């Protein structure tokens, strides 16, 4: 919003702002016009910012006590748990924080899928978001390796071996990633370095994500453009800030619930056994947030094919804005897409479930059906439904949708027809 004209009242403020328009930026963020019909699904952007900062702060603290060496890493983590003042708390916040971060990011992504926030003119926001998601997965994976327990070691072995599926150069690439002939001390050391780097890359992308958002402004539950800012929007502060803070507090209660009452429920007890290159745990699974992709990997009875399909499942999201052919953004007015949306949610949950189960029998069948449907949704259903679907009439403006006297949007929509 480059047309923003702001003049500080104080002389010192004006002097400073003429040289570095930081106060103009603050003013822009405060007054940023926000659709007045945003619901609580829109509070996850703020929650995710909180999650990133929490991970960075707790991570910096943990790095003060952690030792990135194959012989000392496991012991140093136990040292954090037992000796360091509040070390147990800070580590549990960090490890559960990763899960909470992914929980929030999944809600954020599905919010975007439901309300069509990835569509024109917000494609760049979406693409930056998927890049952030990719980096989050890389950071989470490398972070999981650092405690150097059994799951760390074998998770690192399995994931790095994915690259050995690449024809001709695969083996060399894997050896290069390891810096040894297996996952070993050099691997741990570089993973620690990269694990420290990635959050700051994410932070940079978050700035771009928000910058790109502030060009067209927020999408909203009815998915139509702002007609008249004075009628359709409210200033970000205090309206959205207070709503975001309330949602954040609820989120923090759940977060604290995990940290204080069930800190290990999302992890695997095998990771409290020091890494042993001689013995693989009987049942090896990634963290819950990577399970759907793990299920896709295992559903293909071919090494290279599985790897390609797994990476495709993520990379397909980059072209999503062009796969969805419908001009209507919000699923509220798309009766057919709305149903497929929920089937996709179910499909991904099923994939996640079978990803945690052994790759045999009915689970393998389910994984294959789930995988096929996943790609079917993006490659066939989305383009076709966009053409064939008869969408419900859209409200004329956001204000009408809100002021129709009901918070239920489908009723607001019917009222619209009478007008």
């Amino acid at each position, binding site marked *: 919003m480059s047309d923003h004209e702001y003049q500080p009242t104080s002389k010192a403020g004006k002097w400073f702002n003429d040289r570095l328009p930081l106060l103009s930026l603050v003013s822009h963020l405060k007054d940023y016009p926000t659709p007045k019909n945003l619901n609580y699904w829109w509070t996850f952007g703020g929650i995710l910012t909180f999650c990133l900062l929490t991970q960075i*702060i707790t991570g910096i*603290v943990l790095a003060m006590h952690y030792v990135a060496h194959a012989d000392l890493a496991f012991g140093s983590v136990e040292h954090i748990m037992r*000796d*360091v003042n509040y*070390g147990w708390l*800070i580590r549990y916040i960090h490890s559960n924080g990763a899960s909470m971060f992914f929980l929030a990011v999944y809600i954020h992504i599905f919010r975007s899928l439901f309300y069509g926030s990835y569509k024109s003119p917000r494609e760049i926001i979406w693409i930056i978001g998927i890049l952030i998601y990719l980096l989050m997965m890389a950071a989470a994976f490398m972070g999981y390796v650092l405690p150097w327990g059994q799951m760390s070691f074998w998770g690192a072995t399995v994931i790095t071996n994915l690259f050995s599926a690449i024809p001709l150069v695969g083996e060399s690439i894997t050896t290069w990633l390891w810096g040894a002939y297996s996952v070993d001390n050099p691997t741990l050391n570089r993973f620690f370095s990269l694990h420290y780097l990635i959050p700051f890359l994410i932070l940079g992308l978050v700035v771009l994500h928000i910058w790109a958002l502030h060009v067209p402004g927020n999408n909203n539950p009815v998915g139509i453009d702002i007609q008249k800012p004075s009628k359709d929007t409210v200033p970000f502060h205090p309206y959205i800030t207070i709503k975001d803070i309330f949602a954040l507090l609820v989120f923090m209660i759940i977060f604290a619930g995990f940290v204080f009452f069930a800190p290990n429920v999302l992890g695997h007890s095998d990771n409290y056994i020091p890494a042993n290159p001689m013995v693989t745990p009987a049942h090896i699974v990634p963290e819950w947030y990577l399970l759907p992709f793990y299920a896709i990997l295992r559903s293909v009875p071919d090494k290279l094919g599985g790897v390609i399909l797994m990476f495709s499942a993520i990379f397909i999201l980059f072209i999503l804005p062009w796969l969805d052919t419908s001009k209507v953004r919000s699923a509220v007015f798309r009766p057919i897409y709305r149903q497929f949306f929920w089937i996709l949610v179910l499909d991904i949950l099923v994939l996640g479930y079978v990803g945690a189960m052994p790759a045999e029998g009915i689970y393998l069948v389910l994984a294959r059906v789930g995988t096929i449907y996943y790609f079917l949704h993006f490659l066939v259903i989305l383009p076709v439904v966009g053409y064939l679907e008869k969408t419900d009439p859209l409200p004329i403006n956001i204000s009408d949708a809100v002021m129709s006297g009901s918070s239920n949007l489908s009723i607001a929509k019917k009222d619209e027809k009478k007008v």
Partner: protein
Amino acid sequence: MAKNKKTTRRDFLYTATYTIGAVGLGATIWPFIDQMNPDKSVQALATTEVDVSTVEPGNSITVLWRGKPVFLKRRTQEEINEARAVNLKELKDPQKDEERVKEGKDEWLVMLGVCTHLGCVPLSNKGDYKGGWFCPCHGSHYDVSGRIRKGPAPVNMEIPKYEFVDNNTIKIG
């Protein structure tokens, strides 16, 4: 604001919210500060027992306690007399030699071997005072009781908490 400054229900809510918020924020920040303090494994090393049976009068040994050197000097009677003959008015940080040793164990000076100026380790039997110490970093001279006599250091070298477990064993810390 209303013209009459009556306290409203809303004022109470604001104050209560800010108070709880400030307490919560403080309770959240504290662990992140306290984690940098010495942890339990460091505290567990906070005492060191030293066998001093082999130290002859006039000699000293140095042991490591909490990552710092501790001088254990077995002084001769001559050195003790000298330390006690000093006029307190001459001292920068006046302290009697008797206050720096355990009663009945006058020959033992147990002292943190760290210059009180900027933390270097002073050299034994160097400097202007016989049997004393000299800090090579910035030239502080200490006497045979470890008291600062000359140079930039502000106070005498520190006496740590210690006790005699038996005649031959000193427990520092």
